[in-house]
């Protein structure tokens, strides 16, 4: 674009030749300059608009926030929901809670996938030791939870160092909506989590670290969650059976939000709801009544006839 030079006052008029042109411009010249500037500004604005139209990944575009969909929980999160391009920690309360932690992480990743504009897949970096200890991921189980197997990629790695390297590269590459990685608590420190959260910002993906045990040391994560198993709410049709996945969730730290704890449950795949796939796969709050005595009572009531039988055998 060519910008025509402003006419200099001395050369234009027949008045006195003056040294400072800006101060001594004649009024009609000033209005001319203003009009020119206005025209240029308008042109720039028009160009910028077209840029935005072309730029699909523009961050200025409003996006659906990554939230739980429960008012009580979302009130604790910052305005925009969970930060999408950041690192989040998940740690089990105690040894046996690992499966619950992984389930909750998966549920969060599914929520994240729902709000991902490009529907990028989820990557889970498994450590070989964890696979032996707690089992490998089961695609059918994941589908039941609500993540289709086309949307999941798995990497199995031996060394913790490889896990960090891969997670960092995966986050940077920007190919995934979220990258989940098993993490051994003793290897995690502030530097590593800082690196990971920077890479998450670079690749615009979410990093989810799943610790293998309770982790108290400081990390650079956006939010920290602590998970324990919770008694599942009984199903109306089959009260003696385990219900939907349920967790006692503690949000111990979140930037710009408030900590809190809730009993949450996740609606998995519903057998007869294939026509309404969106009806399943969402969080809901468990009210206190399911948590303790009641469910236990119903379970025992269900087993009562069996208990009266004389013969028990161990196998």
């Amino acid at each position, binding site marked *: 674009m060519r910008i025509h030079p402003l006419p200099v006052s001395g050369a234009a008029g027949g008045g006195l030749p003056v040294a400072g042109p800006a101060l001594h411009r004649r009024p009609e010249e000033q209005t001319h300059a203003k009009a020119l500037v206005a025209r240029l500004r308008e042109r720039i604005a028009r160009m910028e608009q077209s840029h935005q139209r072309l730029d699909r990944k523009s961050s200025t575009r409003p996006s659906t926030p990554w939230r739980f969909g429960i008012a009580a929980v979302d009130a604790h999160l910052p305005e925009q929901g969970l930060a999408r391009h950041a690192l989040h920690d998940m740690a089990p309360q105690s040894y046996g809670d690992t499966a619950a932690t992984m389930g909750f992480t998966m549920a969060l990743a599914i929520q994240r996938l729902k709000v991902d504009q490009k529907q990028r897949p989820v990557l889970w970096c498994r450590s070989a030791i964890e696979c032996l200890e707690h089992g490998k991921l089961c695609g059918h189980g994941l589908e039941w939870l609500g993540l289709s197997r086309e949307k999941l990629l798995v990497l199995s790695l031996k060394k913790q160092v490889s896990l960090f390297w891969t997670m960092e590269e995966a986050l940077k590459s920007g*190919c995934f909506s979220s990258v989940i990685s098993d993490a051994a608590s003793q290897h995690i420190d502030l530097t590593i989590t800082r690196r990971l959260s920077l890479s998450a910002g670079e690749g615009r993906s979410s990093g989810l670290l799943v610790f293998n045990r309770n982790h108290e040391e400081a990390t650079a994560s956006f939010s920290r969650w602590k998970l324990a198993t919770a008694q599942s709410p009984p199903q109306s049709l089959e009260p003696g059976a385990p219900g939907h996945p349920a967790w006692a969730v503690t949000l111990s730290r979140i930037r710009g939000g408030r900590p809190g704890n809730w009993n949450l449950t996740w609606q998995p795949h519903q057998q007869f709801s294939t026509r309404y796939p969106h009806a399943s796969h969402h969080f809901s709050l468990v009210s206190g009544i399911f948590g303790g005595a009641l469910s236990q009572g119903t379970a025992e009531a269900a087993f009562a006839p069996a208990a009266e039988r004389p013969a028990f055998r161990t196998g």
Partner: protein
Amino acid sequence: MPLPPKGLPFALVEKGQKGLRLYAVNISARHFGLGLGQRLADARAAVPELLTEQHNAEKDMASLLGLASWMERYSPWVAPDEKDGLLLDSTGVSHLFGGENEMRKDMARRLTEYGFTTRIAFAGTIGAAWALARFPSPSCADAQSTSPASGRGKTYPRPLAGEVASRSDDGEGIQFLPIEALRIDANAIRTLRRLGLKTIGSLQALPRASLARRFRGESIHENVLLRLDELTGQRHEALNAINPPSSFMAHRALMEPVISHDGLEAVLRGLVHALVADLEAKAQGAIRLILKLFKSDGGRAQIPVGLSAASHDPRHILRLLLPKLDTLDAGFGIDAMTLEARETAGVVPQQNGFMEDDGGTSLAEFNDRVLNREVLGLSSLQAVASHVPERAERVAKAPLSPSGYSPNKLGESVPRVLPQLVGEVPEGRWGPSLQPRPLLIFETPEPARVIASVPDGPPMRLTWRRVTRKLVRSQGPERIAPEWWHLTSGERPRDYYHVEDAQGRRYWLYRDGLYGEDDGEPPKWFVHGLSA
């Protein structure tokens, strides 16, 4: 094996007919009049101070092949010839070295520096080059005749050290070569000599029909006419290169051996850009790359790199190659480098983002970087049509394409193997499993002790990994019968239960076998998975 001291007669021996025989001799031994195929006892009698060493044919061949791959610096088309020769196709390459003469001099100089005695010949056909390199040109035939080379078997009088046969005008030069230079077997040679035909020229003078009638052997070594035609170029002979060259390669010969990492990196960058420009011009992408580094001490290092999807992105290729350069042992320096694209595939050129530079990498590129560092790359969990949980899923290489992850086109990227055997899932039929499955599943089910009412009551108490849990909820049984069509014996029907303990932890248990069946072992319990 230490090198023999210079000037002393030395020979390699091998077991032959009636004891040890000389396999190879050095120059001074040759001056003493020792020849190939001679008995060691005779040689010792003539030259008592002769040093000998057992000949190792395998090592010899390995070293010849090593030298052959080193010779690829001159021409991409190299093949070992018998036990002691190399054949190079120098078509279109000699001008890179300043002509055939210069190329020959360069070869001779380098090989002599490494301690090889060479005789190099250029000719229009393989046969002529072979003959000229192995048989002295007529001018020095008299000098040669004094060496007592035994004409037995496949031994020929060896040329003297350091001799270089230049390219002779094919028609003229070969006329005076002995018939042994025809690569024919001993019987044919004997017959020809009996007939008084001693040179190739005298054979050429004969009518072709009579030659064809006389030597109509099955093998090429018996057929004199065919060999003669190969020599003169009337019959084509193919050269089987040890490494068939690719059409996409970039080569840099360096003035000075480079040993520093930075120096090598700079050369590599140049190579990658040269190769990529070639690939891009033909809309091809590399799938398999080989970087060959020629060391100044005669060794060669090779760095292979594989790509998940064809690519001609210099940034990506460099990122894969550079880390491998760190682990390289450059020895005394690298004096030439070649980058070849061994396998290529067409790629659709993709335009970058118009407004912004898309800094991200594709899934295939990410996978390459992982594979470059780790053993296994990205994998996906694929459903298999089986009810048995261990077989219901397999972990397979993720189907990747340049545009990304294309799981919908499973059949295209993953080779189909007999669907009825593997139980590949027909699309849309084996959707999300109707039965709930655990999140985590153990590779091998872990034995557990369970208290349950007989015969098929719900589990009440579970002891697993030495901890006893009281189970408060249970769902089941879900019976899974063994798949008789898999012909695995010893499998029993299983009853699966989803259970939850007092703390809310969920397990997926099964009972292997049924109660009340008297034959065989009592049923056993296993923990097969953990639910969220």
